[in-house]
């Protein structure tokens, strides 16, 4: 804890407080899937894939007027420092749930009654902020699958290191920093669909981190749009 995470205007990875890590996005990476995406968010490497709409199993989960979303966030055993047990942990169960809830309001579920849409988020390498990167990738995969959507879901976190509010914490900053606030928004509908918080914030710091994370989400959203444009309209510089 004695190690300084911020000095001389730079963070441990050389970033400024309001700077995102390098981000790469791609859609259409899994041939078998209805839609898919790959994202690199710093050292996070995540694949998301969508299958469906298809039949609901078990049948009793069917909704007569809308689709249901099934979501699994999972980390590969080699994605972490010490090997992660491949069985789903409670953390992964929780993140699967909040990712699903962050995506759902963007999807026109009533267009697909009596079906299930499966969303798989597989973390190949994690580096702090994987839920935000995961939800971003999942939304891209849904768009790539041609699912009718009202908006994309864009995710980004902000936190506090050495008492200062900072954008997009990496793994070390998340572990040793003071607080983390993962956020996901529907940029056009201006809704917050994912919000979590751990660590200590004053009211003022919370609002500052919240605004910073929102700006981060908007930047992520721009990249999502450009990634889709690149694939579907060959719009390289858009």
């Amino acid at each position, binding site marked *: 804890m004695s190690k300084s995470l911020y000095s001389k205007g730079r963070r441990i990875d050389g970033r400024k407080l309001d700077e995102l890590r390098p981000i790469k996005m791609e859609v259409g990476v899994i041939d078998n899937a209805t839609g898919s995406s790959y994202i690199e968010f710093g050292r996070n490497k995540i694949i998301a894939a969508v299958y469906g709409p298809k039949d609901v199993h078990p049948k009793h989960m069917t909704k007569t007027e809308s689709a249901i979303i099934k979501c699994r966030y999972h980390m590969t055993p080699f994605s972490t*420092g010490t090997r992660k047990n491949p069985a789903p942990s409670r*953390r992964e*169960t929780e993140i699967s749930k909040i990712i699903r809830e962050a995506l759902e309001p963007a999807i026109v579920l009533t267009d697909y009654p009596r079906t299930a849409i499966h969303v798989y988020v597989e973390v190949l390498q994690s580096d702090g902020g994987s839920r935000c990167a995961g939800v971003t990738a999942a939304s891209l995969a849904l768009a790539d699958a041609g699912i009718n959507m009202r908006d994309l879901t864009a995710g980004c976190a902000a936190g506090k290191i050495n008492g200062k509010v900072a954008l997009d914490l990496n793994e070390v900053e998340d572990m040793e920093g003071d607080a983390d606030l993962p956020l996901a928004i529907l940029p056009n509908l201006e809704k*917050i*669909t994912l*919000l979590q*918080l*751990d660590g200590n*914030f004053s*009211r003022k710091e919370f609002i500052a981190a919240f605004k910073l994370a929102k700006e981060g989400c908007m930047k992520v959203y721009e990249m999502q749009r450009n990634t889709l444009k690149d694939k579907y309209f060959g719009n390289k510089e858009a």
Partner: protein
Amino acid sequence: MASKKSLVVEYLKFEQMLAGISKGKRIDGRQLLETRSISIEPGVIEKANGSAKVKLGKTEVIAGIKIQTGSPFDDTPNKGLLIVTSEILPLAAPWAEPGPPNEEVIEIARVVDRGIRESKIIELTDLCLVEGKKVLAVFVDISVLNVDGNLFDAASYAAVAALLTAKMPKYKITKEGEIEDTGKQVPLAEKLIPVSTTMALINDTIVVDPTLDEETVMEARVTLTTTGKDTICAGQKGFPGGFSMTDIELALDIALKNGEKIRKTIKKSVELAEKK
């Protein structure tokens, strides 16, 4: 959902509930930002290191603390363990069934866990006996006895009250490196009270401490945990639905204010229990 009444009655009730909320009135007569009556009774289980039963309106939960020795995680060799679990007992609702915990219950346990962990009510480094080898593990197990909405807050209050009244055995390390129970009991937790406040968004209106009926019509939910009048330590948005930016700011103010109020209630019941 949980009612025995016919669907028609349910439907009419929801209509009335929604109409009322837009006018600032709730179906049970509460104000929008009013919590239900809270009763906190610590020390209900003698065999546990700490325990508490909480009633929040008709929602009823019991939390028990067990402290055992265990091995630390590889990446935190000098820290004790905090393990929070929750279960909706099959007797707690007509639809509740036995079985492994589902994601709803896991979320409750993890949100309660986060509130406790981040508040630093337990200093985990104090629970280290032999670095890298032996530490104390604090198990916080929460059983839901009756479901009527807002399990998050009820579970959190029960866990916190149980921790505040919990005593742990004092161990010492002998010359041979063995762990020996001195037979003395010391308090487990710091005098710090994290308070969780859960709010539901219904008809674009924020209501505090939703009942089960209100939860069935809510669009989204947010839980914020505070440890002081200007400290927020944990949060979780849930349910498919979105909050606007102003909703979140409002929720923050509500949580800070409600936190101060509930903190007094918890403090009072803990002090009362300690006098006994």
